[in-house]
């Protein structure tokens, strides 16, 4: 018997990364800004997205959403009320979305062409661990954190918080009764991802939505 060492130096998720790079090229040439929304279950991703879609529409922008869940199309039906095209992705037990699922759900999406969109939102499966390794071809990864979750969430899930490009604090209308320590939360986010843009929002009252929508418009502008 002889032993041989073969150097591979290859990304474990190389296939996903290649597929995601291809998607990113497609999105860029179509001129659509793609965002990947990630949070724990129950943070309020869907409510936040619903309001975002509604307000973008009011501003005359064209937006669509792909929404990931293990089962049910409840979120897609909720989001469709905003008037935006929405497509559900059911992962049937898989704890994250991957680039292949995105590519597959972009095919045959009735009435939607990437060229006709300004924004495409991808609502990931509620999970703060697994989605961090899977590039979906997005340009902006948004991590959401609600005031009910505890200010130390960024410290508990540094892998995901560190990979985000923007952070959104949700449900600020109930911050006070929840005893939410705003300063501490902002500090912790910044310790894990120094300099990240942070938006403090309420999908219910609309607080903070203007700053968020301005940011989207700014990011969507061709550079």
């Amino acid at each position: 018997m002889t032993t041989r060492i073969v150097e591979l130096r290859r990304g474990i998720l190389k296939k996903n990364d290649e597929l995601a790079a291809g998607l990113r090229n497609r999105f860029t040439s179509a001129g659509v800004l793609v965002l990947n929304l990630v949070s724990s279950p129950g943070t309020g991703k869907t409510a936040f997205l619903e309001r975002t879609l509604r307000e973008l529409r009011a501003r005359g922008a064209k937006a669509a959403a792909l929404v990931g869940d293990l089962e049910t199309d409840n979120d897609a039906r909720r989001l469709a009320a905003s008037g935006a095209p929405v497509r559900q992705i059911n992962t049937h037990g898989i704890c994250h979305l991957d680039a292949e699922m995105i590519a597959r759900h972009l095919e045959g999406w009735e009435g939607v062409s990437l060229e006709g969109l300004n924004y495409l939102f991808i609502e990931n499966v509620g999970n703060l661990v697994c989605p961090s390794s899977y590039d979906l071809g997005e340009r902006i990864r948004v991590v959401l954190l609600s005031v009910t979750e505890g200010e130390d969430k960024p410290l508990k899930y540094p892998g995901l918080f560190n990979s985000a490009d923007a952070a959104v604090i949700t449900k600020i209308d109930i911050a006070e009764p929840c005893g939410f320590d705003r300063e501490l939360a902002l500090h912790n986010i910044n310790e894990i991802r120094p300099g990240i843009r942070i938006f403090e929002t309420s999908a219910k009252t609309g607080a903070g939505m203007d700053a968020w929508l301005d940011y989207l418009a700014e990011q969507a502008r061709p550079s």
Partner: protein
Amino acid sequence: MHELSIAASIVESVTESASAYPGARVKEVRLRVGALASIVEDSLQFCWGLATEGSPLAGATLAINMLPVIVHCDACGVDTEIAGVQSFRCPRCGELAADLRQGRELEIESIELEEPDAALPDPVEEQV
């Protein structure tokens, strides 16, 4: 939680690479995994057993080299390893350091193959 998907991706990738060496058995797969890669070592080892079972990689060991986070500090102009993943500050000056130089790796570094000596019959056949 996604370690099973990761293990399955490793099996697929290594099986493909090892096919270039007919008759060889994969003895060990060596990984480089950054502290921010969201991988639980024990969980990946557990899933490795499941993912390799009944595959050409059955019996191969998985060696995981966990890499600490290294940040680049603009003020000091140097790359430094930080302790843990709770605060991204330069250990020298204490300033926040957003520029990550290591910590997100999730890669197969190398594989160790056991190959039959040329003159001997191939022992791998029976196992496949």
